[in-house]
């Protein structure tokens, strides 16, 4: 009769309680019954966990395969995304640099044109001033000449013969 059979007998309420022989020291019926309950509960718990852990392993291995595939897919998406983002950013920076260079070049061209226009305006102004000065000078000379001719024509008619004499003498 093994330990379990003896406990079963005890559980059935049979009077063959033989704790002295069964145990190293006698066990009270209450304690014996409690230890039986403890063993039964541990057995039930262990059986449940043992079954569950095996089911969980099978389930987790399937889930692991899915997770692995999903992980790979996600990794690929992330890598592709980061690469394309890098390329896009590079292109954007290049376009910005080109636009900046073009804007700078245009600004330089405009400045050069403006400078040229200013120089032309200055030179035009200078030439106009020169012309004006020349015009003023020529008009002064004409005026003096007319004054001279006018003055010379104002010699009285009575003095005309004397004036001719002076010419004749060479004085």
């Amino acid at each position, binding site marked *: 009769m093994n330990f379990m059979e003896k406990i079963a007998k005890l559980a059935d309420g049979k009077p063959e309680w033989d704790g002295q022989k069964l145990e190293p*020291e006698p066990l009270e019926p209450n304690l014996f019954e*409690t*230890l039986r*309950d403890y*063993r039964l*509960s541990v057995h039930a*718990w*262990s059986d449940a*966990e043992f079954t569950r*852990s095996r089911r969980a392993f099978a389930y987790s291995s399937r889930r692991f395969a899915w997770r692995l595939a999903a992980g790979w897919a996600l990794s690929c998406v992330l890598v592709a995304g980061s690469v394309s983002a890098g390329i896009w950013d590079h292109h954007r920076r290049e376009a910005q640099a080109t636009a900046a260079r073009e804007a700078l070049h245009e600004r330089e061209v405009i400045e050069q044109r403006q400078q040229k226009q200013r120089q032309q305006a200055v030179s035009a102004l200078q030439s106009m001033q020169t012309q004006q000065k020349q015009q003023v000078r020529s008009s002064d000379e004409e005026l003096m000449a007319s004054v001279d001719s006018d003055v010379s024509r104002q010699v009285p008619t009575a003095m005309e013969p004397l004036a001719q004499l002076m010419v004749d003498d060479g004085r």
Partner: protein
Amino acid sequence: MATAREIAAEEFSAVVTKHRPQIFRFLLSSTRDVDLAETLTQDCFLKAHRNWSSFRGESTAMTWLMRIAINLQKDHWRNRRMQFWRKTQTNAVELDEASDWLPSGERSVEQQMLAKERVEQVSKAVAGLSERQRTVFLLRYVEEQELSEIARATGLNEGTVKAHLSRALARVRAELGGKR
């Protein structure tokens, strides 16, 4: 024609199928941690597989496997790297979880509640035992092993096993008596 290695593999496979639930149960009741018990059970059978050729059959396969399991458990607790886990025991169940699995049988609700409470008290007392006392107690009252088998599995002599069992029972009695 099957080779010696194939025969040994078949034998070992049969041993695993037969004894794995029992080894798991002992480790679970001792550690009260499902994940840890599963890991130690796997380690136990891995170690057994490596040393299967050196098993001479002087004791039963169960005793041999139980000895490996006890040593692995001892190593686990002694391992300093695991001290943190020993303190936290994140996956360890509450003391009353095992009692939730108590079969109702043909008891009244009141009897059932009383039995559950007493099982919880035993669980609490077992958790407070020293490692050796707990091992001896569980092998005797959960795994129903004879004292000679326990002595072989633990490497102790029968007198020492009796002494540990006696102290463990005293602790359980005190716990049950104190709560009445």
